[in-house]
């Protein structure tokens, strides 16, 4: 899937390239991405901005709250481009029964 990759120069301007994601990984140090673009060929990126929202679902399912916090942050930060990955850790473990 071709997408627009926005390279921010400052909050008010930047450049963009169309491209296709080849690889994306979170290293211990930074977010590493490789794109193929018609304009520049293969392009290497480090730390296109990421935002992680963690919640604990131990006593109750807080997914909705995490989504709400995330939506508020996106609204406040106005990123040029958004890619969301939802990682449900330990989803095979039973939730502790909610205490009434």
């Amino acid at each position: 899937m071709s997408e627009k990759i926005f390279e921010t120069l400052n909050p008010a301007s930047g450049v963009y390239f169309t491209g296709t994601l080849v690889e994306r990984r979170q290293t211990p140090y930074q977010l590493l991405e490789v794109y193929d673009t018609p304009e520049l060929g293969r392009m290497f990126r480090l730390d296109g901005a990421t935002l992680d929202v963690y919640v604990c679902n131990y006593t109750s399912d807080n997914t909705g709250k995490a989504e709400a916090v995330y939506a508020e942050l996106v609204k406040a930060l106005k990123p040029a481009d958004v890619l969301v990955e939802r990682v449900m850790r330990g989803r095979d473990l039973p939730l502790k029964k909610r205490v009434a």
Partner: protein
Amino acid sequence: MPEKILERLNDGSGVYFEGTLVERRRTPFQLLEVYDTPELGRIFRLDGYNMTSERDEFFYHENLVHPAAVAHPEPRRALVIGGGDGGSSEELLKHPGLEGVHMVELDPDVIEVSKAQFAKVHRGVFDNPRLKVTVGDGLAYLRTTAERYDLVCLDLTDPVGPSMELYSPATFALAKRAMTSNGALTLHIGSPFSHPGRVRQTMANLRQVFKRVTPYFAYIPVYGSIWGFACASDVIDPRAMSASEVESVIGARKLRDLQYYNGETHRAVFAIPNYVKPLVG
């Protein structure tokens, strides 16, 4: 509401500025838009392409005008085809020997909006008695005029669609006919990185008509790329001037309010990187 204003360079790339729409109108000729942006101040757009901005207009207008105007020993009459924002006319009229600048702009809405909204670009040039403005077809004007100009600036939209004809050898020949024997024509020729074909073709077209065609390059923020220009003449070679010769012309003509141009930039813009050499011959 702030939005991302995309300035497309080609299918695969471009530049963007955050901005808020101030005005949008469809003129008989084109779609005209004005945006306010934190980065460049007010931006003027035609048919979805950035033309100029308050904060960076001097990058383009000074480089379009001064390398040739300074290299010309005594420019007295100048013609601007297009340039309805007034920026290039304002730069030309900084040269005190210029008795008159004649602007021939196709679209009266461009002039009206520029007068009202882009005082920081035209700086009152429309009130200068040395500027004559004609609303009309620049190509038709070149075909019929009996005037002879020392400097001609093609200050036009990019050579796509209807503007294509204005970058043809036939148009360049008409411009030459309207020039004095040692006159010089200047124009922009596109980005060597984003439009290599356009740069190559325009240079070749100019060389069919003029003996000396000198390409030069400057980064233009509102276009988002390094941008090509050319000075075309049978006589004038702006590369022949040293930085100190340029500085003495700047001093002798008392050129003021230059935010880009000086003796060293005059030399620097003619430096051609190796990847550009095959495009400009």
